[in-house]
């Protein structure tokens, strides 16, 4: 797989638009959702996602296939870009609540219940500190492996695993407390 990454990077460096488009198509939704869950704002996440892929293209010469996969490298750039955004801007995180459900098979009551449940979880994740939020988003929401998260965040995989365990405990407690109040 790493050799394929090297070939892809070389092609993009050479100006191969098809290779670059394929790379974007393969990663855009996950990158976008990562930005969305970290910064908490839809339009900012969209702008950041574009900025990330532009950075990927402009710094493709610096990609070293021996150190990490292309995917891990892209998410490292994504992480730095989101962190810079949160640090540099006076940024107000708005809650992400999906107002409209397009799935008409679910009854209105069912939709309300589903909306309430995941909204609570989304709120709970948003309430975590940034370092914890990005770990739970990468592992539990986007399905990254511990090793990949370690490479992206600079933490040993064992540390990621133990932190995630603690984060999950806290999330369950937060959600349990919220449910208890109802």
């Amino acid at each position, binding site marked *: 797989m790493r050799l394929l990454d090297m070939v892809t990077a070389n092609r993009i460096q050479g100006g191969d638009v098809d290779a670059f488009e394929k790379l974007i198509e393969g990663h855009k939704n996950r990158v976008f959702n990562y930005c969305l869950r970290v910064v908490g704002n839809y339009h900012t996440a969209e702008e950041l996602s574009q900025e990330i892929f532009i950075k990927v293209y402009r710094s493709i010469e610096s990609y070293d296939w021996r150190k990490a996969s292309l995917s891990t490298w892209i998410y490292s750039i994504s992480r730095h870009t989101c962190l810079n955004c949160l640090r540099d801007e006076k940024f107000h995180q708005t809650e992400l609540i999906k107002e409209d459900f397009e799935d008409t098979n679910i009854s209105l009551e069912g939709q309300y219940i589903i909306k309430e*449940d995941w909204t609570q979880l989304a709120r709970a994740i948003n309430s975590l500190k940034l370092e914890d939020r990005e770990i739970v988003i990468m592992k539990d929401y986007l399905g990254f492996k511990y090793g990949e998260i370690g490479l992206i965040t600079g933490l040993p995989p064992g540390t990621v695993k133990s932190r995630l365990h603690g984060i999950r405990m806290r999330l369950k407690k937060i959600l349990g407390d919220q449910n208890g109040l109802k």
Partner: protein
Amino acid sequence: MGSNKQYFKLLKEIPFEKCPDDFTARVVNHSGILDKKEAGYNTGTQRNGSSFYSIACIFTAFLILLVINYNVGNLNKYSTDMLSTNTIAFANQLSKSFIITFVSPERNDVK
């Protein structure tokens, strides 16, 4: 809510948003890759590299043909016992010719 099962079930319900349809086109337009495409895919280094590779392949093929031609032409003259000796002698002669031709043309003593 305390169980892992409920936690992961709720996680799956958090919407996985999709990028706008024109996202890829916007990124490609703003990245500058289209300017590079107009300039041509290969840089000068890549072009020189592919020419050298082609010449090396042709030269190697020529050498292989020489060896095959020599051995096939002499199969009816020599027995199999002598074939390996003949091949070694041929390789020796070829290397001498190479040295005379490409390395030191004035070295007539290697003849």
